[in-house]
């Protein structure tokens, strides 16, 4: 029973992922569509960060927000992304001691 659920989940996840690969090869988009598609990563990053980051500690949303601010500061100082991640983990760890 579980196996059919897994297969069903795999299909509905895979189709939206590969469909664009089949479509995009055959059409040339106007310039504004290219600009829209180029903006998608930045928009996706925004939508993925907030409000999700407040659920790092669901009972204390400020912890995720503060860790995020630490991340912004580190990234702003051109710290390598690995240390941005480690810095945010450390700050959550310290805040929940």
């Amino acid at each position, binding site marked *: 029973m579980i196996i059919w659920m897994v297969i069903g989940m795999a299909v509905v996840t895979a189709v*939206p992922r590969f469909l664009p690969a089949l479509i995009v090869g055959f059409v040339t988009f106007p310039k504004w569509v290219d600009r829209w598609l180029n903006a998608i990563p*930045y928009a996706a990053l925004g*939508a993925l*960060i907030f409000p999700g980051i407040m659920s790092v500690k669901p009972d204390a949303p400020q912890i995720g927000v503060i860790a*995020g601010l630490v991340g912004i500061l580190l990234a702003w100082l051109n710290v390598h992304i690995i240390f941005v991640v480690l810095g945010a*983990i450390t700050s959550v760890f310290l805040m929940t001691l």
Partner: protein
Amino acid sequence: MEPQAIRTTASSTRIHMIRKGMIAGFPIMLGYLPIALTYGVLASRTGMTNLELTLMSVLVFAGAAQFLAVGMVAAGTGMIEIIIATFVLNFRHFVMSLSFVNRLKGVALKAKLPLSLGLTDETFTMSALYKDEAREKYGGFFYASLILTAYLSWVGGSYLGGVLGDVMPARLSDSMGVALYAMFIGLLIPSVKKNFKIAGIAVLAMLINFICQTWGMTQGWAIVMGTVLAGFSGVWILEDEEVTE
């Protein structure tokens, strides 16, 4: 192009691209491992076998949907509802894939198809910020190795979670829950520093996502709305890129 790059042999360029992809995928690995371990532990607790829970990671490769499915299995929800919920939650990858494959015009379809199957929030955003590789020779190897690094840590972590159970101290794994958010921030900020208007696109997406969820939209659709609508602001904000081939 630098003269050195011309002298480099084809095979070393390929290895160079693979190694570069692994390094780019490393932060994703760091973020995925604790989450995959947790997924494995939770899934085995609901009575899924190690084979089933690992197979789900192999075939679905979508963290949030897998957690949702495990939660719904535990709650006794029907299979059809779980599959529909998965579709809704993962539909955002359609938009991301559009953006991804539009960049990979120089890559053959037979390579683009498997690459697009490996798109997650993390592999997509990481790849998107390494956009020059799309135009370089053997660029496909770079993205393939980035995605495989993420994929193998997800599948491996799930299996280990199912086999070993709770091995991580709870406080550590709780703290590591912030890892992927920090990674998204670490990806966004350098672009914002280069072009401050990009912050506008991201903040707009945050607001749209937040408002949609406040109105009771599911998380999956709210992220799609935020991404698509805020992306449209890029039509006026971003400049056309030089396409040199």
